[in-house]
Structure formats: structure tokens, C-alpha cells
């Protein structure tokens, strides 16, 4: 058990590092980088969703803002890309704090709705503000590595996204072991009760919200410089947001590696459906049915299947048997 729980992640990490050198062509490097990007985003999503149970279908808003922020700093102000990435991530995080203050006032379903609204609104703003963002024409961001050819760029970004994934995983792990994490989990279970135990729930939720936005916006920023062209409709897409949710849910939101596992399944599966069934829209149906099946049959995710709860309901008092002996003697 111990060997499995330590050894498997280590093995996977080694495989991940070697991946670009193991595959035969650059397309697979590209697809790998995309998968790692999704893994990083869903792990960041899980910083909010997994701990607090606040399901955001709108995290692509932060992805898009990170992407546009980085892109605009580079294109309009000529900021070096690393600086642009960091500055925009910080700005998005600050923005997320403000949004969070309003958004986490509502729980459950209302929060989901608010998160959907956030993406739609950001999409409208970025698309409508043509003079700044280029509107529907999109924004073209120059490559940061003009000397590398495209395939090499993919390798570089593969490792950048891998680093981001590592950072997100580390944060989740750290939070899960901290008292902050315990507070967040308590919020998921019973918010008022947590509050009465002295947990400043508002501050905790906003912090989790912002932290998760931070990593997602970093992913967005990296995406902008890697991909080079941004289009509001597609970076502010509910579908990207719901992919984060689907991946996390499929893998298991209560586990460190849940979202990662989900991403490793969903991203290639999506690719497969599109190539195999791509001629008609039936691939949407396939994705939809997959989501339905996951929700119905594995609401706690794949990993939950392997980490079964030990005790069933109803743990009798240890003294019960003794008590009985005494009475029925």
C-alpha cells in the first residue's frame, strides 16, 4: 500500500518529465502540453471546489482574464512576457478578491449561476471593448521565443505547464494539511457551524477563491504567450470552465491527484471523440453522456473507489456489549 501510494506518483512524475522525448512527433507534445494545462487548471479549480464545495462553472473567466491581461501587457505596453504573466496574474487575483466578496455571499446553486454569469459578462466586456482588446477580431500575441521553431516551443511550454501543475498540486497538498484547509472543509460541510467555531468563513472563502483564480490565470497567461491568438468567445467559454469541473469530479474532488487523473482521462477522450465522431455533433452527445454517467455512478470520483471508507454507518459504543452482558446476566 505504502509503496503504491508513494511509488505511483513518483513513476508518473518521471514519465511526465520524459514525455516530450518519448513521443514520436510534435503534435503529441502539443497535445501533452494541453493536457497538462488542463490538469493544472482543474487542480487549481479544486482549491476552491474540492475544499469548500463551491462549484464554479465560471473559472474560465480567470483563464480568459489572465490570458488577455498578459497579452495586452505584452502587445500594448511592450512588457517582457514573464513580467506580463506575473503582473496580470496578480491583477486577476486582486480582481478575484473583489468578485469573491460578492460571489461567495451566495451558496450552492446560486453560486453556480453567478459563476456562469461572470464568464458571460467578461466575454461581453472584452468583446465589446474593441479599442483595447481588439474585440471579436481577437488579440495576437507575439511568440516569446522567436528563435525556436514551433515544435521546440511546445516542449518549452510543456515544461512550463508542468511546473505550474506542480505548483498547484503543492498548494493543494499544503492547504489540505493546514488549519486553513480544515476550515475550508468545514465550510463545505456546514458553513454556519464553522462560523460559530470561530472560522472567519468569508475571509477563508475569498482567499480560496482568489488562490484558485491565481493559478488559473497563470495558466491563461501561459496559454496566451504559447498560443499567440486570443478570441474572447473561446477563452471565456463555459465549456472550458465545465471541463475543469468534469475533470475534478471524475478523478475525485477530495483527492490531491483527482483532478489530474480526470484531466488525463477527459482531455485525450475529448480528442478521441472528436476524431472518431467528429463529422457530426454526436461527439457532444458522447461528452454529455460521459458527464451524466460520472455524476450518476461516480459522484465521488474514481479515486474514491480505491479509498473506501473503513467504517460503515453506526459505530456502536464499545461499552454496549458490556452493558448488555450486565443487564441480561
Amino acid at each position, binding site marked *: 500500500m505504502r509503496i503504491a501510494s508513494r511509488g505511483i506518483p513518483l513513476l508518473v512524475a518521471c514519465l511526465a518529465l520524459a514525455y516530450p522525448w518519448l513521443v514520436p*512527433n*510534435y*503534435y503529441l507534445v*502539443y497535445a501533452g502540453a*494541453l493536457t497538462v494545462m488542463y490538469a493544472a487548471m482543474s487542480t487549481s479549480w479544486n482549491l476552491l471546489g474540492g475544499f469548500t464545495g463551491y462549484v464554479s462553472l465560471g473559472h474560465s473567466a480567470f483563464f480568459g482574464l489572465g490570458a488577455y491581461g498578459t497579452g495586452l501587457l505584452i502587445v500594448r505596453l511592450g512588457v517582457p512576457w514573464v513580467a506580463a504573466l506575473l503582473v496580470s496574474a496578480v491583477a486577476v487575483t486582486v480582481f478575484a478578491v473583489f468578485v469573491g466578496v460578492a460571489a461567495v455571499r451566495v451558496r450552492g446553486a446560486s453560486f453556480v449561476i453567478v459563476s456562469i454569469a461572470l464568464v458571460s459578462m467578461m466575454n461581453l466586456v472584452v468583446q465589446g471593448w474593441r479599442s483595447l482588446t481588439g474585440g*471579436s477580431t481577437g488579440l495576437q500575441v507575439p511568440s516569446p521565443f522567436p528563435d525556436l521553431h*514551433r515544435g521546440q516551443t511546445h516542449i518549452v511550454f510543456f515544461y512550463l505547464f508542468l511546473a505550474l501543475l506542480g505548483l498547484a498540486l503543492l498548494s493543494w497538498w499544503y492547504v489540505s494539511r493546514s488549519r486553513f484547509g480544515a476550515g475550508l472543509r468545514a465550510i463545505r460541510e456546514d458553513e454556519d457551524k464553522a462560523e460559530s467555531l470561530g472560522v472567519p468563513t468569508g475571509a477563508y472563502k475569498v482567499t480560496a477563491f482568489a488562490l484558485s483564480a491565481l493559478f488559473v490565470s497563470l495558466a491563461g497567461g501561459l496559454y496566451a504567450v504559447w498560443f499567440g491568438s486570443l*478570441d474572447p468567445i473561446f477563452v471565456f467559454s463555459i465549456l472550458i470552465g465545465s471541463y475543469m469541473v468534469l475533470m475534478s469530479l471524475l478523478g475525485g474532488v477530495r483527492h490531491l491527484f483527482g483532478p489530474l487523473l480526470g484531466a488525463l482521462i477527459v482531455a485525450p477522450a475529448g480528442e478521441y471523440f472528436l476524431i472518431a465522431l467528429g*463529422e457530426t*455533433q454526436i461527439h457532444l452527445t458522447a461528452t454529455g453522456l460521459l458527464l451524466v454517467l460520472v455524476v450518476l455512478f461516480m459522484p465521488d470520483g474514481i479515486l474514491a473507489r480505491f479509498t473506501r471508507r473503513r467504517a460503515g454507518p453506526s459505530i456502536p459504543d464499545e461499552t454496549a456489549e458490556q452493558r448488555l452482558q450486565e443487564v441480561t446476566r
Partner: protein
Amino acid sequence: KTDEPGTAQPAGQQQGPVKIGISLPLTGDFAEPGNGIKDGYQVWADRVNAKGGLLGRKVELIFRDDASDPNRVSSDYESLITQDKVNLVFGPFSSRLVIPAAKVAESYNMLFVEPAGAAKEVFEQGFKRLFYAAPAIASDHYNYLADYLIKLPADQRPKTAAYASLDDPFAQGTAYGLRDKLAAAGIKTVVDEVYPPETTDFSPIAAKIAAAKPDIVVGGTQFEDSVGLVRALQELKVQPKLAAFSTGPTEPEFAAAVKGAAESILSPVGWSATATFTGNQEMIKRHKEMFNGEANEDTANGFTVGQVVEAAVNAAKCVDATKECQDKLADHIRQGTFDTVVGKLSFDDQGRPEQAHMIQQYVGGKVEIVLPEQAKTADLVYPKKPW
């Protein structure tokens, strides 16, 4: 990597079929025209293979569906070029998809002839191997109409114009092209609206137009918004002397969707079913045989891409994915003039076509070409009949 730039093509590649990689929006927002383009590509491939192929090799088209998503369109060209190792790529539909797609092709040094990236921004990205295989870019689509209106005698000439445009680089491009020319000629812009693609209700926009009582109404539209606008204008009893919309009226569903209101509506069109340009009638016939339906502008645009590339390949005598060959092809296209189903085409340094779109009008329930003079099949009806 097997696809490291400069790696020699495996020997087998030189003999096999010529593989052409294409990603199209077969689903999603642009599905309708995307499928039209696909038909055009297929008719072209069928014609070429019937004639013995490209440089004696059979042509094989590999299609991907990008679901109208720019992320996917990039993935698709990425995999077509590096995994399927296609010899050539053809472009997708819509300016919104052409830009990210061309970016990938450009970075692998591939020639990129495309059927539907008309917005002027497409040509401002510094692409060196991109060509738009249609008569004119978006902002020039209405040129003939602009000339016509400006040349009208003063008493008939419209004084005011209202513009409503979808927030989309192509749609806005067409409307603004006309607006700028008319404004320069003294026709006053009284309404200038841009609406996001989410818009579902056009009545208030029509109300604004109604309040301004313009002489002419111009829409920069895709499909559903053109229908919405026409209906809303009717409901609010706006009766301009002229109404023009881009794209919508050229789609076959338009007339049915707006019922009788299609009459007299104008729109720019790059192709005509009655024209006798090289291969046009043959394409229409073959299309009917293959798909049992009428060819339309989208089919023609796809077919045109094929014709241009075919001519270049025959002239340069190579179809490799190597930089040398692709450069040769691009250079040839930049310098040459091509006979296509939409007429003679030539390109400027940025890949812009240098010809002009025609103007079509619904006359007596039929689509007729009314401008320019030399191509017209009917006279332009102006002022229009009330709807």
C-alpha cells in the same frame, strides 16, 4: 522527432497520394457554411482526380472538425501537419478561425490558401503564405453598391443611412467598408449599432432605426441576425429605400426564413451560378450529382481554393511539405493570375485578392446579379418595394 523541420520526407511519401489537410467548422456556430466549403473541396478533389490528379498523384483530402473553436482549429492543423504529414493544407471557414489556423501553418512554413477569411485583420498579421481565394476582402464587398449610390442623381440619392452590425470582424468589415465610402460622399450616418453575437431580440435596434427614419438600411450580418433584423424592421414599419445585408441573404434558407420580405434585399456575393468562368458550370453540375443539391457561394469558395493551389502546383512542379516547395508555391501565387469559378484572381503582397464582389438582389423572388453592369442578370430595383 520525425517531424523536425528539415527532416527528409520518407521515401514512400513521394509516390503515394497527395494528402491535403483541412480543418473546418463542421459543427458549432459556423457549421452551415463550413459544410458548404467541405462540399466545394470535395467537388474539386473529384474533378482533379478525374483528370489524373496533381502531378500525376491522386489527391486525398483529410478533414477535421474544429467545432468552430479556435483552440481546436490550431490542434487540427498541428496534427495534420506533424502527425498526418500532409503535403498541403487548405483553410477553414471564417476570419475568426483563419487567423489562428494560419499561424500554425505559417510556423511550419506551409502555404495557406483559404476560402473564408475576408476580414481586413487577417491580412495584417504578417503572414507570408496566406491568400484569400475570393474576389475581395470584407471592406470591399459593397464597393459596387457604393459606386452605384454615389452616382445616383441628387434627387434620388439617399441622404441618410443606418448601419447595424454584428460584432464579428467580417460582418463589421463589410458594413464599415460601405459606411466609410458613403459618409465620404456626404450620406449621413444616422444610426451606427454594433450588437454582440448573444443578441436574440432585434426589435429595440429596429426601434432605433425607425426613430431615425433613414433612407437606406445596411446590415453587417451573418445569418440569424439578418433574419432577426429584417423581421424586426418589418414589425416596426421601417420602410427604407434600400436594404442590404451581408452573408444572410446569400444562404439558401434566407428567403424562407423571412417569408415574403426577401424581395429587393441586396447583398454582396462573390460568385454567381450563371457565370461562365472557368469550371463554374462543371462544378455546379458535379455538385448536383455528388450531393444532390444546389451549389452556393461557400461551395464555390472551397472550389476556388482548389483551383488556385492546383494551378500553382502545376506551375511549380512540386507538392512537398518542405519549405522550399511551399515557398515556391507561395511565390507563384503572389505573382500569378488565376482563372477560377469566381473569375480571374490575383493577390497583393499580403495575400489580399484584388478584384471585387458582385451585388445580388432578390428580384421577383429570384436571386439576380444586379451589379456590376457587365455581370448583371437583372436591373437593380431602387427604391425597393415595401416589405
